[in-house]
């Protein structure tokens, strides 16, 4: 079995902890807001628990876990949870991501 999960790093050697605050990007604020809606802190439409969020963050492959930021982990995890709960399907997610990607490319180079 897995004795110590990768995320469970209390007491492990680590680099210096940066104690400075940083500003959040707009997308990070939106992910936070989405999570508050999904766990029912606001809006009254509870779709998941914070414990599921944690479980799916902790299930990230170690290399991905290390390179992701806090809200990167959140958005991957809450998306995974919505698939597990049947709120969205993988196919819907794939098609939406492709749509968003195309939209982004359109913005960068509007003229062909």
């Amino acid at each position: 079995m897995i004795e110590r999960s990768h995320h469970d790093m209390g007491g492990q050697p680590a680099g210096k902890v940066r104690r400075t605050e940083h500003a959040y990007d707009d997308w990070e604020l939106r992910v936070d807001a989405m999570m508050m809606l999904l766990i029912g802190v606001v809006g009254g439409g509870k779709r998941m628990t914070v414990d599921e969020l944690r479980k799916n963050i902790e299930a990230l492959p170690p290399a991905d876990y290390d390179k992701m930021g806090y809200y990167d982990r959140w958005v991957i995890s809450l998306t995974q949870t919505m698939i597990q709960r049947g709120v969205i399907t993988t196919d819907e997610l794939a098609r939406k991501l492709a749509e968003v990607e195309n939209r982004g490319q359109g913005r960068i180079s509007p003229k062909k």
Partner: protein
Amino acid sequence: MKSGPDPDFLFSPGDRVRVRRAAPLGHIRTPFYIRGHAGVVERVCGAFANPEELAQQRDGLPAQPLYRVRFRQKDVWPGYRGSAADVIELEIFQHWIEP
């Protein structure tokens, strides 16, 4: 989060307890570094739906008693160089501790 009938509280403040050594799968609320260590119950925090079950889309009931347990830092960390009186407190669910 408290719901259902009152659970059986097996421990009280002052009780000496030991954290179980276990490594199950899923979402676990007991950090690796404290497993196997002995401490003293500092307070009873109440009873809450079991987060390890909630993480798996179940209701987590019956509610599990939660305790704040006090450990001596020098017992937890090999070669601890701070004061021998330093403590660390963790909140641990009942199913993770034993007498």
